[in-house]
């Protein structure tokens, strides 16, 4: 265990010791590697499929990390933004609202067959922007009632919103505010328009590479946003709020604004990934928007290292792979080899749970801990909200 820790630490130290230009060169090399990676695999194969999902999960996880990791607001209802992002593309990128414009549809920036379909069809990029905006607004709305709450009370209120939005997704077919149903209920909205992006042709089930590159682009954007914000005035304010809300307010950090910006940023990234997932799965399935999804993403960031940007990416990739690749494939073939007579795929989420426990007990601070958190562990520094002035006895 300490060996692992030392290994990571020595890598970190070695990295810090490098010349900035060398670091930059390595960064570019890694980037090029990831861009050309799909050429070495089957265009419609499982590798690219898994890699695409992992990247999209990384976007989700980076978004949640802004809320939980940076600002310290425990959000258990992150699935809400997956749902809202997915519905944004369901609303603006499918034939769901077929009656719009007398059945002729509404088209912006779409070509080919899609341009003839009824319903609202916006270009994928426009939809992504819309998803970010819709989710950021909802992030603020959901954040508002939690502002005066602390710690686990925030958790339960966000959880409640997540569940409510999940319920609306399932029952939304009976909600018709202006004669238009909010969702398609359990039927789901399908098909979803294939993205129509310049330079990337043929998004479809046979060639997954454009999907991969889109996901990679979104992940890079999320990384960029995360790094820039972490090292900014706002990022410092988030960490200050996380460490000690009272001191932060006394030092001039406006709590409401700071927290709401964290919610909005995190929600925006989640919504972007949500819209992507809906397009990728070619459906907005209301039954997916469950609490366990929130927990899945939360597990990624805690496992990876709360607040640590690279850690979160690592956590997302590891859990995504365990979820989509490792368990169904590896374990399905295992029993025959070792002579067990029951199907281990039945045990998939039990094994998932077991791995969560093992990984957490072995590396409680996460795979790649945030530098700050490492210290928090060794020094036993709490989150600072239990220490109240002694004279105050309420």
């Amino acid at each position, binding site marked *: 265990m300490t060996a692992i820790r030392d290994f990571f630490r020595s890598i970190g130290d070695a990295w810090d010791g490098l010349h900035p230009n060398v670091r930059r060169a390595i960064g570019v090399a890694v980037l090029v590697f990831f861009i050309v990676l799909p050429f070495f695999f089957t265009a419609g194969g499982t590798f690219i499929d898994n890699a695409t999902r992992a990247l999209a999960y990384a976007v989700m996880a980076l978004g949640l990390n802004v809320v*939980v990791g940076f600002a310290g607001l*425990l959000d258990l209802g992150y699935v809400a933004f997956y749902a809202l992002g997915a519905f944004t593309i369901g609303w603006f990128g499918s034939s769901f609202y077929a009656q719009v414009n007398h059945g002729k549809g509404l088209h912006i920036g779409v070509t080919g067959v899609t341009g003839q379909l009824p319903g609202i069809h916006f270009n994928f990029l426009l939809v992504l922007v819309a998803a970010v905006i819709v989710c950021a607004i909802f992030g603020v709305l959901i954040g508002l*009632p*939690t*502002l*005066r*709450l*602390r*710690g*686990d*009370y925030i*958790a*339960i*209120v966000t*959880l*409640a*919103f997540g*569940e*409510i939005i999940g*319920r*609306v997704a*399932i*029952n939304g077919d009976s909600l018709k505010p202006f004669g238009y149903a909010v969702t398609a209920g359990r039927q789901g909205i399908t098909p979803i328009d294939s993205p129509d992006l310049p330079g990337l042709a043929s998004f479809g089930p046979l060639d997954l590479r454009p999907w991969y590159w889109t996901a990679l682009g979104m992940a890079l954007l999320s990384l960029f946003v995360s790094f820039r914000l972490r090292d900014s005035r706002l990022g410092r304010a988030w960490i200050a709020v996380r460490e000690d*809300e*009272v001191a932060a*307010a006394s030092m001039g950090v406006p*709590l*409401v604004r700071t927290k709401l910006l964290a919610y909005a940023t995190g929600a925006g990234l989640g919504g972007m990934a949500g819209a992507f997932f809906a397009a990728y799965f070619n459906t907005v399935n209301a039954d997916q928007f469950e*609490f366990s999804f929130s*927990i899945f993403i*939360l*597990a990624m960031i*805690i*496992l990876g290292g*709360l607040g640590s940007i690279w850690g979160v990416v690592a956590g997302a990739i590891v859990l995504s792979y365990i979820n989509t690749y490792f368990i169904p494939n590896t374990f399905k073939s295992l029993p025959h080899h070792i002579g067990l007579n029951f199907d281990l795929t*039945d*045990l998939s*989420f*039990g*094994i*998932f*749970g*077991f*791995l*969560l*426990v093992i990984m*957490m*007990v072995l590396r*409680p*601070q*996460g795979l790649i801990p945030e530098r700050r958190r490492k210290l*928090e*562990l060794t020094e*036993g520094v*709490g*989150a600072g*909200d*239990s220490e*109240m002035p002694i004279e105050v006895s*309420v």
Partner: protein
Amino acid sequence: MPAPPDFDLHSDSERGLEAASIPVRATRAAPFEAIQRFLSRYGLIIVLLALPLAFMASDLAHGHGFAHILENLKDGVSNGAIWALVAIGYTLVYGIIELINFAHGDVFMIGSFVSFGMWGTLGVTLGTGTLGRVGGLIVAGAIAMIACGSLNVMIERVAYRPLRHAPKLAPLITAVGFSFILQNVGLEWLGGSQHGVDDLVDAQHILVNIGGVHIINADVLAIGITIPLVLLLVAFVQNSRLGKAMRATAQDPEAARLMGINVDHTISLTFLLGGLMAGAAGLIYALYNTTIRFDQGFEAGLIAFTAAVMGGIGNLQGAVLGGLIIGCIQQISDDRINSTWTPAIVFAYLILIMVFKPQGLLGEETREAG
């Protein structure tokens, strides 16, 4: 115990200094504040009563009398008794180590499964005589309680204790991990679909009819087990030496350690008590609903945790109150609105309660009650 801070960091955000840059006045009795005060005092009561009162009014308007709404509330209370028992487990554990024990709902599910299994083992079926059934229920209940209690203690030992000094959220993930493991155990045990349970207590049998409200066997069972258990538990926590140790640890683990309290044992005891209650709740659930399912604990856990927070987490009485309130909201919603909306309505209530009373219904007492 999370000390509810009194710092008021947010209020009056509407009023900037610019607006206030006027000579000091002695008082600022704005009507805005009066409304705020009124809402903070009575808002919650209004919110809680809105649903039952609205339907009562509509019943009366249609000439149906009080029977229907009272029947709803009666069902709600007996159903809520189960949530109350599960919620106690959340609140005890949260009170002492500030952890949302996500595996707790699944421990409750195991309670139902063990009860069911015990009837099979003991050979208690619909053909068994009354005495045999009662004996079978008592034995099965006792074993389910012990099984859940031990399971809970084991989970703490394996998944939480090693992480006691880890970041606060680390044990949350191991809790989720154990929740998955237990669900999978349930799945392997009885399969993925609903599993019928013999209606051993003749649950729907109407015992008495008080002014149109039908008291059925299931009600008597739920209330009859919950009340004594809760009373015993409260008495234990408040009066016994171990209970005092629990409260001391909840207030300040470090100080408790210095006072010679074995903190590890005390935490184990807390998990044991929570597990016992969950086991009893599992038994009642199986008899009350006559079906069990491997993922019943997931929803129950969510509801019970909501109940615990609603009542003011860390507070025993609050957990019971929260459970009963949620039971009533669920019943009214199931019966009057639509059961597919029920979870959304329960959670909307939770949000409203958090807005009006951020510490939960009985949250302020947490400090004294430990």
